[in-house]
């Protein structure tokens, strides 16, 4: 239940995620060098437009990528089709975007 447009959206979102995942892992390794605490993380992220864009883009890419991936599984294993499958895809995507966006706002604002 994947057409070329959904396929492209999933592949492009994967291409966006790949460098962001590497960046996230690199920062994690750097950030825990002196121990891990919330204050240190927030001091780096709060008020930072750069980290807001970094993780905002990451959440957007994950929401698109995961919603399309789960759409395929929902069709093949749960046999969802038509409007129900579209609704499922949108709910997964928008829920991921909402929860991820809320987390980004919480650490940046």
């Amino acid at each position: 239940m994947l057409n070329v447009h959904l396929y492209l959206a999933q592949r492009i979102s994967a291409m966006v995620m790949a460098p962001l995942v590497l960046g996230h892992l690199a920062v994690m390794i750097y950030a825990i060098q002196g121990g891990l605490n919330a204050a240190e993380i927030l001091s780096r992220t709060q008020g930072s437009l750069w980290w807001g864009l970094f993780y905002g883009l990451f959440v957007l890419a994950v929401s698109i990528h995961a919603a399309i991936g789960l759409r395929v599984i929902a069709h093949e294993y749960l046999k969802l089709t038509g409007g129900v499958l579209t609704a499922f895809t949108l709910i997964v995507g928008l829920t991921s975007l909402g929860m991820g966006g809320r987390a980004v706002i919480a650490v940046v604002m």
Partner: protein
Amino acid sequence: MSNQKENLDVSIWRGDASGGKHVRYQVPREESQTILDIVYYVQRYLDPKLSYRYACRVGMCGSCAMMVNGKPRWTCRTHVQTVLDGNKVTIEPLRNLPVIKDLACDMSEFFDKWRKAEAVFHPTKTRDDEIELISPDSPKRQAAAAAIECINCAVCYAACDVVEMNPKYLGPAALNRAWTLVNDQRDGAQIERLRAVAGDAGCHNCHSQQGCMTYCPNELNPTLSIAGLKRVTAMAALKGKI
């Protein structure tokens, strides 16, 4: 051969669309015996009501494919000694296709999908035109040549887990044929074909598990053909052509 008089323990699925069961037969083992020889023997000497399909017996017509010990095979070219489990052989109708009776499947849906995939040549010339010269060395001709020797046996279709999970999926055979036509410079329906294979049931549903390639009796690689279709349709979509 020392064990010519041994019997094979053969289990054949008997039934129709409403259901069925395995029936066991004792079939004498012979030298160079094929799975089709076994089925033929059962129908000729043990149970004349057994239904199955074959024509050429030499691996050209694509009509005798069945599941043999759980795997799709062209039975006329499958030697018993290569698939034997002890002295047991289980023969069933092809997976992913509706059964008509016993080992004969209804191939309608399989071939309908070839038409849905625009896996049909659309000529651009008439018999009055000059024959178009195509270099055998051109990359497009070589890509087509690598996929062209399909005998429509449906072994790849039976091997495909995506067809099982997503019955509307066009399947490896139809998409493989479409790929040969995408690479045919004489064809006049390229955009229509790309649209046909880029829809909800099209090439992008393939998970590249390569069951088709593993079992294709002619050693074709439909997964590679489908990857080619994914690439070409993605580029066409980005350029706004489909």
